[in-house]
């Protein structure tokens, strides 16, 4: 199980502005460990699914060029206080993380 996702949602009218931070090494498979001289294997998030009250609102597909500890922001309409927002990711090793917040 990966680290929990930090999610912040700001409600403006019925528009939810979402910011998410996902602690993850995001190793590109190109970086060389300075101490051992060995190439660090690829370890990166491939997919992120964002759900509003159980319905998918945004899906993100990522490659190795997304920065370490990925930050993403997106917006969707039709939100109100008390709604649920869930974000989950899957990485190339099969590891996952899921976090949920109440929109307020």
């Amino acid at each position, binding site marked *: 199980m990966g680290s929990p996702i930090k999610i912040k949602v700001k409600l403006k009218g019925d528009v939810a502005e979402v910011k998410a931070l996902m602690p993850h090494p995001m190793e590109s498979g190109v*970086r060389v460990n300075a101490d051992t001289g060995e190439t660090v294997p690829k370890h990166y998030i491939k*997919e992120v*699914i964002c759900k509003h009250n159980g319905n*998918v609102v945004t*899906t993100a597909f990522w490659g*190795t*060029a997304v920065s370490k500890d990925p930050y993403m*922001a997106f917006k969707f309409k039709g939100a109100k206080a008390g709604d649920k927002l869930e974000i989950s990711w899957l990485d190339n090793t099969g590891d996952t993380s899921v976090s949920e917040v109440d929109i307020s």
Partner: protein
Amino acid sequence: MKLQRRALVQGLLTAAAVLAVPRWLFAARPDKAFEEKTADGVVSDLFNAPVTESDKVTLKIPDIAENGAVVPVTISTDLADVESISVIVENNPTPLAAMFELTPQSIPEVSIRIKMGESSVVRAVVKAGGQLYSASKEVKVTIGGCGG
């Protein structure tokens, strides 16, 4: 002959059932496009259709990125019926950095931080109403972000 047709119909029904499976099953990533070595290869893999430069696509990214390991990008558009937004870094070893699939509930504006190995043209491609639109910008990288 008849049996063959039945098998075909059953096959089609199975395919339809598979398509109806909810998206949370993590299944639709365009893996091949993420392995492509050229920006044109990425576009043809993802869309296989011509892309038009459009001032309706806004690509916000610094002119000069001092640290290529963390380059903030925001893409937004005035276009209607946006289906996806993709970020392509032409000079990265694998240019496709990220692709966002939106829904009718989405407001077409996404932000992400990306790595850039060297100075490069960054391209945002928006699919809206079945058509492809793009915006590009040259970004100068002072310290590359691939070697860490």
